[in-house]
C-alpha cells in the first residue's frame, strides 16, 4: 500500500504538488491521472525518495522508500526508459542493478526473456528503440520480483504494438496480485487498465475512488426524453425542480433520474416516446474535472475559457 499525506513540493515559487493525500490499495491497478504538468512525475519521484517533499509524507507499506532494505525487492519502478547509459549493454545494465539487490545473475536473463529482450541482451542500450528501452525499463522494474510497481507514462510515444504489449503486461501483473500504480494523461488507457483512480490537476487531488465512481461523480448524468407533448412535460419537470435543456426534438433532463421522470409523466398522463439515461464517458468526466487545472493549454483554448467565464 502506498500512502501519501499532505504531500507538497515547491520548486522556487512554483508549486508542483499541493497538499496531496491519497492511498493506493494493495493488489489492484490504480491509475494516476492528470494533464501534462499536473505533478504526476514529481509525486512519483517523491514516493521513490528521489525528491524530498517540501512538506508532507509518503510511505510504502508504512516505510519511507529510503528506509527500505534492498528496495528493488519491494518496489519496482519505471519512471523514464532513458535512464540507461547508452554504451552499456542491456545485460550489463541489469547486472549492476541485480548486484545492488544481491539478486543472482540468472535473474537478469530471466527478466530479459520475460520482456522479450533475450536476443539483444548484449547490444548497447543506446541503440534501442523507445519500445525496446521501455521493455528494458520494465525488466529492471521486475528484477527484484517486487509486489509494488510504479510506472510513469509507460505507453507514451509507443507504437500501437508497444501499447498493446504494455497493456497486456499490466493486466498480467495485476492478475498476479501485485500493486500497480501507473500514471497517464490518457484516460482511455486508464479505463482499460485501472480499477481505482487518483486524479490530480495542478498538483491538487481532484478525485480518488474507483473508475466507475469517477464517471458518476464527474459527469452530470442526464436523461434524454422524447414526447409528443414536450412543452407540457417541460413545464412539469421545471415545476418538480429538474433542469432541462432543448436537444432538438428532445429534452435533456438533469437532476432527476429516469424513474422519477417516468412516474411524473404517468401522473400527468403525458405519453413518452423515449426515456433514456445518458452515461458520460471517462473522457468527458476527465475534461470536465481537470478543465480548470490544465497547466499548459493552447491560446485558443485559454481564450475560449475566458469567453465562457465572461458569458
Amino acid at each position, binding site marked *: 500500500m502506498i500512502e501519501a499525506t499532505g504531500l507538497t513540493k515547491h520548486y522556487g515559487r512554483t508549486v508542483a504538488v499541493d497538499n496531496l493525500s491519497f492511498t493506493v490499495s494493495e493488489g489492484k491497478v490504480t491509475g494516476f491521472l492528470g494533464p501534462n504538468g499536473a505533478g504526476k512525475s514529481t509525486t512519483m519521484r517523491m514516493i521513490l525518495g*528521489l525528491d524530498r517533499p517540501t512538506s508532507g509524507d509518503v510511505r510504502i507499506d508504512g516505510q519511507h522508500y529510503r528506509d527500505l532494505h534492498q*528496495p528493488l525487492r519491494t518496489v519496482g519502478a519505471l519512471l523514464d526508459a532513458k535512464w540507461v*547509459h547508452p554504451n552499456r549493454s542491456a545485460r550489463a545494465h541489469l547486472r549492476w542493478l541485480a548486484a545492488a*539487490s544481491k539478486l543472482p545473475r540468472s535473474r537478469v536473463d530471466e527478466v530479459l526473456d520475460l520482456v522479450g529482450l533475450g536476443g539483444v541482451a548484449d547490444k548497447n542500450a543506446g541503440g534501442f528503440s523507445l519500445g525496446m528501452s521501455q521493455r528494458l525499463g520494465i525488466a529492471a522494474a521486475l528484477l527484484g520480483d517486487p509486489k509494488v510497481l510504479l510506472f510513469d507514462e509507460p505507453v507514451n510515444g509507443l507504437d500501437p504494438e508497444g501499447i498493446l504489449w504494455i497493456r497486456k503486461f499490466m493486466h498480467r501483473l495485476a492478475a498476479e496480485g501485485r500493486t500497480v500504480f501507473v500514471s497517464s494523461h490518457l484516460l482511455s488507457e486508464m479505463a482499460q487498465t485501472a480499477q481505482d483512480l487518483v486524479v490530480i490537476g495542478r498538483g491538487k487531488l481532484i478525485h480518488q475512488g474507483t473508475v466507475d465512481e469517477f464517471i458518476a461523480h464527474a459527469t452530470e448524468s442526464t436523461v434524454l426524453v422524447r414526447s409528443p407533448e414536450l412543452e407540457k412535460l417541460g413545464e412539469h419537470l421545471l415545476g418538480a425542480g429538474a433542469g432541462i435543456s432543448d436537444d432538438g426534438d428532445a429534452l435533456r433532463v438533469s437532476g432527476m433520474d429516469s424513474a422519477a421522470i417516468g412516474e411524473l409523466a404517468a401522473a400527468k398522463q403525458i405519453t413518452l416516446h423515449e426515456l433514456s439515461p445518458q452515461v458520460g464517458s471517462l473522457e468527458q468526466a476527465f475534461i470536465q474535472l481537470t478543465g480548470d487545472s490544465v497547466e499548459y493549454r493552447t491560446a485558443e483554448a485559454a481564450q475560449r475559457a475566458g469567453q465562457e467565464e465572461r458569458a
Partner: protein
Amino acid sequence: MTLLAVERIKLFTTRSPWWCTLIALALTVGFGALMAGTADATEPLNIAATQFGYGFGLVVVMVMATLAITTEYRFSTIRATFLAVPNRPSTLVAKATVVAIMAAIIGELAAFGSWGIASVIKPDIDLTINTAYEWRAVAGVGLVYALSAVVAVAVGVLVRHSAGAIAVLLIWNQLVEPLVQLIPKVGDDIHKWMPFNIANKLITGDPDPTARNVLQGPPPSDAVLGPWPAIGVFAAFAAVLLGIAIVVANRRDA
C-alpha cells in the same frame, strides 16, 4: 562489498575508463621513454626524470574519475542507482573508492612502466630504486592519483556536468595553482598551500627539490610540509571535499 561490486560493474561496462587508462599509460610511459632516449651527459637520466609524464597522467586520471560520476548524471543512471540503493552516502563513498583503486592501479602501472622502459632504453645507467625519496617518486604516484581521483569524484558530484567539472579541475590544477605565484608578495606563500602542489611533494619532495634541475622530472613542489604530512593534508582535503559533495547530494533532489 555489495556496493563496491555494483560500482565496479558500472565502471568496467562502459568504454571511457579503458580509453582513459590507455591514454594515461601512453602519456606517462611515453614521456619516460622520451626522457630516457634524450638523456645525455649534460642532462643525465635519473629516477625523477623517468616520472616526467606524471602530471599529464594525473590530468587524464582525473578526467576518468570525473566522467565516472558525471556520466551518471548525464544519463540519469544516478537516479536508477539511488532507486536501487537509497543510501546515497554509502553509494558515493563506494563510487569514490572504486575509482580511487582504479586510479591507484593506473598510477602504479604508469610509474613503474615509465621507470621500466627507461631502464630498458638506458641499461648502462643505474636506475635501481634505493632511497626513500626514490621509492616515493615512483611508488607514490598511485597514491597521488587515487586521492586526486577522489577530489575529481567530489567535484563531479557537485558540478554534475562533465564539461563543467573537468573545466573546474583542469583550470585549478593547470592554471590557478601555477598562476597564483604571480600575485605580488603573498603569491608564493599561497602557492605553498595549494592542494595539488602539496600532493606533488610526495613525488618531487626531498631531497631539497629546489636543487634539482627542473627539466629532470616533474616540476618540484615548494610545499613547506614534509612529503608524508603533505600527502596527509591532501588526503584530508580530498576527504572534506567528498564529505561536502555527499552532504549536498543527500539533500538535493536526484
